[in-house]
């Protein structure tokens, strides 16, 4: 009976191969990040982003492997010459997981939902330029902007389209998400696992290739590693350098790598001494030896960082363009003397509680202390760190920040005077003018020139010393095929992933 049943199962499996071109299978993933909720407009923490973006939900636009903007739910779009009106043509035949058709009303409702005071979405600033959204016909959406916003298409990648019924509901999607993505929500055991089933009605033919994704929430790193090696898990997404190193060369395990978009930085408080003086900030850059940090703290798995990740090929300048990236403690001391601060310069550095950041902070401390500083490290609990960060209650901090695909998204909020995450309290009118111009310029070549200048301004005397981009790795079993790691840490390519023999 057992054998007969097995044979029937195999036969059924074989049939489904013929039918869909894929073997009936569940891809088992293990991650330590258990999401707090699944509403893409409300829960924006990375734990949620990882299991929702590109899997459960999609936006009008998306990001491909090269970090270029590509059409997703919008098939095409046009921009008026003044840059104030965007018209999107929606893809035909897209349905939500509840079976209803996705149309212009849903898109309008989704954008308005993110903007609504009541929903209080942390993504609201991404669509703050949008004055009104109108459904011209079921397949056409028109966005009117208050001012030209070149990064709009990039911002829209993070605005998931949800059914219009969810517009005023703050709870339903948190528990049972409904999107248009290649996977639909099936079951969620908080702290246990999240099970997503393949969406048979997905608008793109032939995907997803696996029948289900199971995210196992496993807090202990050693347990995840053993689970991968013994085959209980087939994928550990987005590992830090140390873990990737431990898994390298294990039998049956392979690594997919890319450079991270997220960056390790040392932030400085530009609103009070000593870092209110650009010379002191420049001294920090001369004192830091980024190559050594990458070697010592990241096990060589990373590259020295400029303000933009080299993963953003069309934007990033090479770090060799920044004179202050030449390690020169003597020059650092000279700058401190010029600035007239008393040496050693006593400062405290708050440290994000993550092992890699703690390691980086220690190396930075040693390097700065060699060049006229006296840095004290303050290893904080996550909550305290976040609070101090938000309230600009620090001299310096060492942290890891998520990156953005469009330079405006990062620079404008972090470095423009009164930017929404300008915790450095940095204010530079020249830079403000550049950022405003970058935002309203449509021409790519002209924008590139503007952001080249922005990068040069920020690299040496900006309030953040960009330290390194880590190598980001996903470990999979050998039989996992077709997965591409994305620098944005989206797992969207799981739709094209299959589990073969």
């Amino acid at each position: 009976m057992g054998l007969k049943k097995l044979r029937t199962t195999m036969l059924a499996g074989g049939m489904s191969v013929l039918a869909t071109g894929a073997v009936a299978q569940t891809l088992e993933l293990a991650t330590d990040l258990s999401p707090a909720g699944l509403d893409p407009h409300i829960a924006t923490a990375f734990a949620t982003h990882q299991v929702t973006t590109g899997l459960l939900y999609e936006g009008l636009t998306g990001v491909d492997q090269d970090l270029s903007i590509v059409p997703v739910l919008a098939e095409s779009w046009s921009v008026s010459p003044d840059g104030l009106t965007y018209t999107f043509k929606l893809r035909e035949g897209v349905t939500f997981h509840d079976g209803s058709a996705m149309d212009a009303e849903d898109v309008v409702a989704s954008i308005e939902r993110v903007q609504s005071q009541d929903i209080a979405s942390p993504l609201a600033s991404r669509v703050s330029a949008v004055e009104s959204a109108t459904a011209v016909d079921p397949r056409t959406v028109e966005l009117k902007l208050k001012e030209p916003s070149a990064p709009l298409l990039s911002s829209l990648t993070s605005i998931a389209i949800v059914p219009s019924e969810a517009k005023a509901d703050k709870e339903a999607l948190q528990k049972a998400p409904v999107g248009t993505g290649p996977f639909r929500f099936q079951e969620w055991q908080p702290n246990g696992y999240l099970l997503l089933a393949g969406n048979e009605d997905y608008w793109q033919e032939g995907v997803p290739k696996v029948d289900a994704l199971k995210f196992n929430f496993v807090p202990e790193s050693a347990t995840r590693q053993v689970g991968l090696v013994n085959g209980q898990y087939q994928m550990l997404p987005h590992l830090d350098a140390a873990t990737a190193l431990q898994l390298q060369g294990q039998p049956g395990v392979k690594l997919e790598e890319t450079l991270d978009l997220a960056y390790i930085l040392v932030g400085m408080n530009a609103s009070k001494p000593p870092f209110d003086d650009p010379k002191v900030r420049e001294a920090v850059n001369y004192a830091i030896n980024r190559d050594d940090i990458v070697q010592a703290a990241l096990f060589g798995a990373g590259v020295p960082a400029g303000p933009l990740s080299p993963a953003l090929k069309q934007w990033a300048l090479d770090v060799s363009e920044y004179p202050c990236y030449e390690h020169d403690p003597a020059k650092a001391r000279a700058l401190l003397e010029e600035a007239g601060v008393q040496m050693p310069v006593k400062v405290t550095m708050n440290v994000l509680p993550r092992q890699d950041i703690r390691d980086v902070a220690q190396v930075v401390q040693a390097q700065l202390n060699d060049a006229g500083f006296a840095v004290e490290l303050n290893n904080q609990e996550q909550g305290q760190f976040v609070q101090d960060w938000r309230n600009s209650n620090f001299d310096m901090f060492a942290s890891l920040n998520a990156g953005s695909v469009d330079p405006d998204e990062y620079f404008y909020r972090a470095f423009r005077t009164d930017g929404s995450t300008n915790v450095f309290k940095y204010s530079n009118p020249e830079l403000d003018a550049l950022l405003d111009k970058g935002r309203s310029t449509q021409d790519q070549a002209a924008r590139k020139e503007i952001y080249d200048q922005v990068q040069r301004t920020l690299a040496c005397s900006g309030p953040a010393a960009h330290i390194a981009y880590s190598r980001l790795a996903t470990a999979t079993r050998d039989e996992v095929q077709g997965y591409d790691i994305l620098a944005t840490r989206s797992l969207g390519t799981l739709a094209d992933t299959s589990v073969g023999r």
Partner: protein
Amino acid sequence: MLGRLVLARILDLALVLFGVSVIVFLMIRMIPGDAVAIMLGANAEVTPEAMAELRGRLGLDRPLVEQYLVWAGSALQGDLGSSVWTGRPVADEILLHLWPTLELTVLSLAIGAGLAVPVGCLMAQLRGRGADVAMRVGAIAGLTIPSFWLGIVMILLLAKLAPGFASLGYVPFSTDPIGNLQRMVLPTIALALPILANLSRLVRTAMLDALGQDYIRTARAKGAPERLVVYRHALRNALIPFVTSVGILTGYLLGGAIVVEQVFAIPGLGRLILGAIAERNYPLVQATILVVTLGFVLVNFMVDLLYGLIDPRVRG
């Protein structure tokens, strides 16, 4: 007599619950870091309005005493509130996480405590001989080896010996009984071993104490077989400290064997509390700890009743 005992215990229970509720309520609010800032997460662009909105929704802008009274009032009416993020009732969350913990508690106690009695008796009987010394050394080892280390070593060993054996995570017994038990093997051993070590030493000492008593000498003198002397006459007396310890251990296990749950990826109460504290999910933390306390107190209440069964003098 029993009636008065029950009444006194219920009064104790009410007092303990009140005390714990106040302490938990204050403690979680004393953890450094603005709760609302943490709930909204780092890195996100959060406006002061969004923070104020959440603060208002959770009632965190009101005075502490008022917050406590509102919470305690609805808790008394059976409403424990709902999780800050999912909006899911806290009671549901707790129930969901209770089963794995309960299963683990029952299994590891049954095995650990069940084995401790015969092992402890054996150690007492073999007192001073090589086997007793060896078992005592083993017990010390069992007490001192941290269970997370033991857990990881066992996972590694099993991965080498039986690569296909699914030992991590949790599936409900109702959906997959075999898969459930399979995954329970290692965590149960990791928890049962220190229990066995602890309790067998206790049984040994209590037995040695009991075996030295006059009534045992009398029993032996009247020609009762050694088995009967040990298991009927001595054991009954030796059981009192044993039962007390089992009660306390049960309480701890119900609180979620946090470390073992972490290592084996079991979604039990310990992980629920840990996660809730990390995200400052106030309603969830408060309710979960209250429920665990209730369990702890109830178990000890049952232990008190058991005393009466074992030792007639308690019945008065």
